[in-house]
């Protein structure tokens, strides 16, 4: 795993690349620890509040621990029309968590996302970097059961 120092150096100590640095820092664990945020701020010589402000602004970053798999579920209007609400219910039922929660075994976190831009196959969700479409409650449950 690359250290904070290495990641900041890889991005040329350019503070405009902060979003990219945070993405790299977050990728092994799916969340940004306090040490990581403080470390980046120190390396870039910017206030900790600036780094924390950015980390907490964007929904793809988390300052709280999250599961190994992040489910980004689309509940925008085109997915809603095609029955996303029932699918979301099935997902919550299967995982026994609500939106913005993580399963007790630390495997899944459930979040809502804005439109994923695959409305031709609505309803859709992303599990980490994989997008799934044409979801039904059964299909979504199968996908999650098969995610290892």
């Amino acid at each position, binding site marked *: 795993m690359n250290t904070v120092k290495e990641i900041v150096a890889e991005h040329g100590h350019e503070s405009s690349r902060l979003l990219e640095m945070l993405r790299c820092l977050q990728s092994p664990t799916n969340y940004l620890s306090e040490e990581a945020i403080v470390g980046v701020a120190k390396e870039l010589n910017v206030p900790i509040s600036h780094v924390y402000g950015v980390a907490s602004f964007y929904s793809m970053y988390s300052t709280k621990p999250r599961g190994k798999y992040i489910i980004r579920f689309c509940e925008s*209007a*085109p997915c809603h029309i095609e029955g996303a609400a029932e699918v979301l219910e099935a997902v919550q039922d299967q995982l026994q968590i609500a939106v913005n929660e993580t399963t007790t075994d630390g495997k899944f976190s459930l979040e809502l996302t804005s439109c994923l831009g695959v409305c031709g196959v609505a309803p859709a969700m992303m599990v980490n970097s994989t997008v799934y479409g044409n979801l039904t409650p059964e299909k979504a449950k199968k996908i999650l059961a098969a995610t290892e």
Partner: protein
Amino acid sequence: MTLHRSHVLVCSGSNCALHSSSFVKDRLTLEISQAGLGDEIRVLETGCFGLCAQGPIMVVYPEGIHYCKVGLEDIGEIVQEHLLKGRIVNRLLFKGTSDKNWMTKDDFDFYRKQERVVLRNAGVIDPENIEESLVRGGYAAFGKALSEMTPSQVIQEITDSGLQGRGGAGFPTGRKWQFTQEAAGDKKYVVCNADEGEPGTSKDRLILEGDPHTIIEGMLIAGYAIGATQGFVYIRGEYLLSIERLQKAINQAREFGLLGKGILGSDFEFDLEIRSGAGAYVCGEETALLNSIEGKRGEPRFKPPYPAVRGLWQKPTLINNVETLANIGPIIQNGSDWFRQIGTPECPGTKVFTLSGNICNSGLIEVPMGMTLREIIYDIGGGIPDGHQFKMAQTGGTSGGCISADLLDVPMDIPSLAKAGTALGSGALLVVDDRHCVVDLAKTFLRFFAHESCGQCTPCREGTTVLLRLMNKLASGKGDAQDITNLQRLSTTMQQASLCGLGQTAPLPILSALTFFADEFHAHLEGQGCPAGVCG
């Protein structure tokens, strides 16, 4: 160069990719080679054909036969029957609205009424190969601009074309370029806004996936015209395939001397960098996007000064949407008079729409500006599935207006839709049938805005939350007439007082729904319950 007797194009756009089109392509390549046809038939991955609901789609040339919903189990038959024996596999042809099988593009009502300028290469070329773009005239317009035109002549041509921004606001592109050219600054930037987050919109994603070089070319021409040496493409973090394809295209353009220093032997210098977002709808707003590129929170800035004067790192910056930039090459190549022949006099050119919701042919289309909503839904979209009736269309995405069947004959262009009380916006078109409830949908819109409001200005931060609370109350059957009045008053306040487009447009779907579906809102008050039986 090897000549092939047949080419099979497999769509690898995001929608088809979700139908496992890459497995289909791999299996096809394998079975072609096993049948000993490896030297005769070439398999290619292309961008989106448009008929996303029918994916994965495959087209066999030279005949141009379209096969739809091709599964792994169908590959053997296609290879044995079509590719070996020349017999078309009828059961995989698309059944249109009539009983007739649609075989080639000419048979498809879906394609017949379309005019492809922006999508000219999507579904035609291999987007990961710059040579295929070059063969189709890629970068010729840039070459023309650089060698035959002055920067001011380029801007004049764009101004004369009447092209308006395709990202949603519809500002005249030529004037934007002129302001940025005239602004004083030692360094200037060109930014492509590919932060497509408007629900129901996937055109920018599919343009980038299908023809990334057209965006690079548009940005090169823009850079030459305004005097910029650096460009940024800001793409949503969720659009992984778009990022990957564009990065490959940038690398190839550099290898071919189309980006970097001394481009095409001139002293013109220009380079591009991709910056990706991290999940914030508000970053589609141009000043929020600039803050995000600078590595800050994506909060909108006060305007003026506009980005043309003070943008990225306070330098003059030109920001154009993906679709706008995809129009630049064709305008420079064919001239503004050619462009003005398409569309309407007030709103020339084409528009790319993404059709979603209760419509047979959901997917990606491009039509001349001014085509009516009815033609789009029924002639191209194939109408409403399963015998249901049209109830409502929302144009322009979740921040666009909701219109009823009375407006089915409205021309789909920027001024006509503004006059009708809605917006063309990003070109999203959500079609809703009679099983759905307008109040329930309004709740969905407001949940989205309450989630995506960045929290910087009070009218938007508090307004979206209160609107959602009021709508929840109405949906639960506990609302009264005063709640509707409050919805309207608060909406007007937000339109006037919000800092950026998010808060200013969030009330539009609510106000338009209240106008066109007033009876349905009132039915929810009077204790009769939800007429569609959805809310409860």
